[in-house]
């Protein structure tokens, strides 16, 4: 065996006993609960960075088309119900409050309040989705869903996408086409946002049982923290979606 220039002895890590090597929530590859929490928060933020870029692609499309088709976008936005949008914004902000309070409750070891605030957050999220369902149904009735059935009251139909009409002169009724692009973005952006809400509610549901059993307390509540970060991020996305989609045409007559 050749000699080595690295020492072979295991080294005790200072601060490792804070929270206890034998703390049931400490994973073996971490030295302390504090380090574990920091790693878990950082990791969650890395995921949120990917979410920023994911939604960001959609916002880029929005910015580009908004510049090019500003009149159509104003008209299309005007047809959305800004009161429902504003109500949903308030609901989501309130749900962010209840989410933050769920974490607070864990920090002060109030087990039942953790569960209460988690349920409250889920409830508010569901209210949000219910309003969105109402809005989508309304779009469907007014033929504002992009695709073959799309109609815009100020003009005719947009050209269908499939190849059957490829010989027909393209770009008929441009205004209607520009409005359709607004609605395409509307459905994709709010639809993707809604999918994120559904997943968030699912994750919250998964936290209920452990929370009821007292798993989350002042020493350990990383899953709550990570879920909170996710939930607040989805809230931030809506904070931008609301003015961009609903308030463009608010001053139009």
């Amino acid at each position, binding site marked *: 065996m050749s000699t080595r220039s690295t020492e072979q002895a295991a080294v005790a890590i200072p601060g490792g006993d804070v929270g206890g090597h034998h703390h049931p929530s400490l994973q073996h590859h971490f030295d302390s609960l504090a380090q574990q929490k920091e790693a878990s928060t950082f990791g969650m933020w890395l995921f949120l960075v*990917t979410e920023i*870029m*994911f939604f960001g692609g959609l916002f880029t499309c929005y910015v580009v088309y908004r510049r090019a088709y500003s009149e159509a976008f104003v008209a299309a936005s005007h047809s959305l119900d800004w009161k429902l949008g504003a109500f949903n914004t308030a609901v989501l902000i309130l749900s962010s409050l209840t989410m933050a309070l769920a974490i607070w409750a864990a920090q002060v070891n109030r087990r039942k309040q953790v569960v209460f605030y988690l349920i409250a957050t889920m409830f508010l999220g569901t209210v949000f989705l219910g309003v969105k369902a109402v809005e989508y149904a309304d779009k469907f009735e007014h033929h504002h869903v992009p695709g073959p059935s799309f109609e815009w009251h100020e003009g005719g139909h947009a050209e269908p996408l499939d190849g059957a009409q490829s010989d027909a002169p393209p770009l008929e009724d441009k205004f209607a086409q520009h409005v359709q692009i607004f609605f395409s973005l509307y459905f994709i952006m709010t639809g993707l946002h809604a999918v994120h809400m559904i997943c968030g509610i699912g994750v919250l549901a998964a936290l209920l049982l452990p929370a009821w059993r007292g798993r989350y307390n002042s020493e350990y509540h990383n899953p709550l923290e990570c879920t909170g970060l996710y939930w607040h991020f989805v809230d931030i996305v809506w904070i931008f979606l609301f003015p961009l989609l609903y308030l463009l045409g608010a001053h139009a007559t």
Partner: protein
Amino acid sequence: MRAPGLTWFRLPLFIWSMYATSLVIVLGTPVIAITLLLVAAERLLHLGIFDPRLGGDPILFQHLFWFYSHPAVYIMILPAMGVISELVAAFARKRIFGYRFVAFASIAIAVLGFLVWGHHMFVTGQSMYAVTIFSIMSMLVGVPSAVKVFNWTATLYEASISYETPMLYALGFIGLFTLGGLTGTMIATLGVDVHLHDTYFIVAHFHYVMVGGTIMAYMGGLHYWWPKISGRLYPGFLSRLSALLVFVGFNLTFFPQFVLGYLGMPRRYWSYPPEFQVLNVLSTAGASILGVGYLLPLFYFTWSIRYGKRASENPWGAVGLEWDTTSPPPTENFPVIPVVTREPYDYTSEEVHRRSTQEAPVVYQVD
């Protein structure tokens, strides 16, 4: 988690390049994901985002597509560059010249790589101002890569180089990646690209960096770490022959394509005029040789798993944490977590010097 004592600037440069790569992956991949989602929605749900017949903009699609797809090539080259740093240090038996410059150059490539995507769209219809900016930024992104090539070359200066198979691949990389990178700067020049876009010059360029670069580094790394991973040695003569075949075959395949592109042969055409025939045939011949060069390792690596001589802990006499444990390593890599006290690539230490002069590395199978 990192071993105790393993500070940032004691990390092997391969790890630095992997960190830089993960930066690119995290930031770039979601954009291609949403772009593909939009295209899928367009096709399946008839939503019409990029279709010009419906007022959509195909150039917007290209902006979103290339925002990821250019950084994607850096995802491919950064780990390769990291491997080269390991190989050059090990087979020049010398620390990498300008360690910090190489480390920061990796980060610089990752960051700057996000600012150049428009050079894939020079002729699609962007504004003159935008293409100029992208052209200038594309020149800039070549600088950190050049810094790395200079540092590897400086490492080789007055070093005691041994021409083992991994080193052959590393030397091949340094030359061929440089050619690929220089031709990249050529086509980053806006006026030149108007002529060369969508010709075989582009194909030759990216094969020089991808095959002459990334794949050679991959082969070099495979031959370097094979004894560590499998615990077996492979035949020295055959492996060096393969490296030579790969080098010759690769150049014969792709150098004619530079000429073809310059002469105007377009990409993605299945037929070509007779004046391009000779160069095309040369390229195909080269590909055959290249294929043999790639097939041989398949055979001798498979052979080595069963019949290869067992590898010691450190068959190359290299400096690095992986060489301080058995081949292959045990579960969790080390019997006891090591404490790192030495600088990376510390070939000057007396103990390493003694080890290298007394115990000649037993590398190859005695054929």
